[in-house]
């Protein structure tokens, strides 16, 4: 009964929250575009289909590149790799962060010491520089490999946050009770601790999702993106490489940047909205 009531209350605040509505709206728009876009786009993203460097027109909505490729087709195809990196990279990072954060926070002691040092070490290494060195040696790169690398290197931030939360939850009475009744640590973590920080975990995932997209975009921009296919970052890379700037071909580099900014900004704004919903102290007075 009380649980149902609480959920209704959250939904009530969720529907009232403008930040959540705007952020979620923007993200959903791009998700829909990812699926519908390739159906609307008339051309293959890597085919030369029109005049070189033509500005946006009725036929080529976002104009064409120096090689006569349709920018709109590239954009909608690039979106899917952006979301894939976000889900796989951000998801893997969150799962690793959860595993290490729960283990360190719940067990404490020596395991915590070791994991804490490991977390801080990986946290101090400049991730992008590391990814650059690794990617430069991989000759054939796919979006999945890229996401994997990003996930494996970006977990420490999540691990730290989750460890701190676990620490404060594990001394609570209901956790003691579960321990007294002989439940296994894994079960306690998943049935007692995790549900009580579900909102926190979800928000962590959203932030990891956003930062994975930004990291991938930077990597792609340096020319270390997927060797086949197209992503928003590679579009910017090619635009700068083929001096779209000097030629004033703004339609080549503006859309991919707007896409990334809107998705990541939307995710962040959505996160603030969620924070206000879950945390009554932050609700606007």
């Amino acid at each position, binding site marked *: 009964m009380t649980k149902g009531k609480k959920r209704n209350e959250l939904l009530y605040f969720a529907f009232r929250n403008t930040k959540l509505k705007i952020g979620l709206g923007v993200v959903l728009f791009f998700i829909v575009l990812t699926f519908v876009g390739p159906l609307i786009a008339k051309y293959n993203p890597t085919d030369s289909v029109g005049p070189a460097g033509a500005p946006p027109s009725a036929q080529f909505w976002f104009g064409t590149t120096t090689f006569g490729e349709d920018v709109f087709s590239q954009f909608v195809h690039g979106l899917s790799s952006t979301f894939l990196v976000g889900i796989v990279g951000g998801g893997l990072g969150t799962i690793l962060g959860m595993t290490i954060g729960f283990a360190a926070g719940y067990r404490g002691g020596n395991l915590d010491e070791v994991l804490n040092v490991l977390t801080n070490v990986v946290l101090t290494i400049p991730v992008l*520089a590391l990814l650059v060195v690794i990617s430069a040696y991989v000759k054939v790169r796919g979006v999945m490999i890229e996401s994997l690398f990003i996930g494996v290197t970006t977990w420490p931030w999540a691990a730290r946050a989750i460890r701190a939360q676990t620490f404060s939850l594990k001394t609570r009475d209901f956790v003691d009770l579960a321990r007294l009744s002989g439940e296994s640590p894994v079960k306690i973590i998943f049935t007692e601790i995790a549900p009580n920080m579900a909102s926190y975990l979800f928000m962590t995932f959203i932030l990891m999702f956003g930062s994975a997209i930004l990291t991938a975009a930077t990597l792609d921009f340096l020319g270390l993106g997927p060797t086949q296919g197209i992503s928003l970052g590679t579009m910017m890379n090619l635009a700068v490489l083929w001096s779209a700037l000097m030629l004033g071909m703004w339609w080549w580099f503006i859309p991919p940047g707007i896409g990334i900014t809107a998705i990541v900004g939307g995710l962040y704004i959505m996160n603030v909205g969620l924070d206000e919903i879950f945390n009554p102290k932050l609700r606007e007075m």
Partner: protein
Amino acid sequence: MAKYFRRKLLIYLLTFIIAVTVDWCIPRFMPGNPVDLIISRAGLKGSAVSQMYTFYMQAFGLDQPIWKQYLNFWIAIFHGDLGTSIFLFPSPVTKVILGAVPYDLALLIPAILTSWFAGNNFGAFAARSKRLDNTLLPLGYILTGTPYMWLGIVLAWAFGIAWRIFPIAGGYSFAMRPALTLPFIWSLFQHWFLPFASLFIVQFGGWAIGMRNLIIYELEADYSHYLAALGAPKRLVRKYAFQNAMLPQLTGLALQLGVIVAGALATEVVFSYPGIGYLILQAIHNEDYFLLQGCFLFVVIGVLLANFIIDITYVIVDPRTRAGMQGGAS
């Protein structure tokens, strides 16, 4: 305090060892041996291939046992020897990178400091002010979602191509030779401004929203309510909230360093600004792996030093770390 620094130094030492080890491992255990690459580039045939192969294996010390190669690598690093650049043959990698470092420092230090101070002050100012909260803070979130290099591209296009106010390539005018003259310094400044601006703007948004959220938390804390109940003026309560919120922001700066440096590297690529980021791009295009590995090590060392400076600042700012009461910026 001694314990605090011991712990920090242990972490930094481990980080450095791991970074060096990664640098050593990657070329040796990744598919695509650099020696094969050099030979295939030279286009040799027949017995020349195996002869050149042994020659290069010996020249790079790759015929020695693994543990000895690892030891040699460390010895070379302590001698400041990171190999020879292929792209700028025959300059040693260390020399090439040291030539680029001043540009990075000139870009990063002012951008980090100014954006941190300005962003924090603005965020504190905007907190709990409804109008600013609803107009400027969404902007802050959009800014944090902006990829550094894209903002750089847009600024370069607007101010460099469309309006022609600033130059958009290089560290100084190509027509000049480095000298301590006023026109040259002016040229340096002109080339520096846009990359600096794009770094400043993106970071500013992040600090402003971070501070705004922290101030709201602090204003809800017991001590704030207590002060208010005592009848303390609003300004005083906010002052205490601000001082308390500065500490997590300082930790935040340490955590963000890697991301900021990455942003600077990408921004340098946009503006062909001759820092390490630009070197990395050249190294990737020319498959100059020694240079790439050297850049990685320098970035790691830079981030470690910056972290250490922040740790010292933290001890100065937060008396609790001095008294050994709390962990501080862990």
